[in-house]
């Protein structure tokens, strides 16, 4: 089977993070401008860092191409890395926001 080893779990991770927000935490993170601006900046830094880690000329991380879609862009970054990175950073921001909302609620109801 091709692409199942990385592509499939990467897509599942993105869906799981969406479920975490919309069904469990409901922080409203996706409606905040600060989130989208931050993610554009994070993406801007992911490209050089991830590009360095995955460059085919001297890779630090080596992928088995049978487990990826084979699409590498930009540079030699497997596109799955962007799903992986989005899921990881967004999940952390969701938990961070949950704490902020908890503190807010605590301040409103003394």
């Amino acid at each position, binding site marked *: 089977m091709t692409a199942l*080893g*990385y592509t499939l*779990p990467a897509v599942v*991770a993105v869906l799981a993070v969406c479920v975490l927000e919309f069904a469990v935490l409901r922080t409203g993170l996706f409606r905040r*401008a*600060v*989130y989208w*601006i*931050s993610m554009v*900046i*994070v993406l801007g*830094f992911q490209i050089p*860092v991830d590009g*360095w*880690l995955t460059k085919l000329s*001297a*890779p*630090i*991380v*080596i*992928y*088995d191409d049978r*487990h990826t879609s084979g699409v590498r862009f930009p540079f030699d970054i497997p596109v799955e890395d962007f799903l992986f*990175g989005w899921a*990881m*950073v967004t*999940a*952390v*921001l969701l*938990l*961070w926001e949950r*704490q902020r909302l908890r503190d807010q609620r605590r301040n409103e109801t003394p």
Partner: protein
Amino acid sequence: MDNWQYLVVLAACLAITAPLELFGTGVYRQAWRAASAVLPVAAVFVVWDVIAIGGHIWSYNPQYVTGLELPGDMPIEELLFFVVIPLCGLLTYNAVDAILVRLRRKRKQKAPST
């Protein structure tokens, strides 16, 4: 020296984002809140990583890692990755948030009072 490459990349990420701590209420200054956001997610991604390493889906070039490994053949660098990159994300988010709050306050001050 090549063996330090992955660690140096991570250290550079921490160094570049460190000044962002000066914005707003910071991230490192809220260590407990940061830990309770970063560590549960890191735990899930470590499990994913160990499964992927075991399944030979990805591997690490021995030339560019220190060789210090955790159970599951996971390089110590990869564990640090799951702490360092989320911290960079939190620092970015916290700084952007502080800047937006400041801009909004300024706009309010400029607007004629009605």
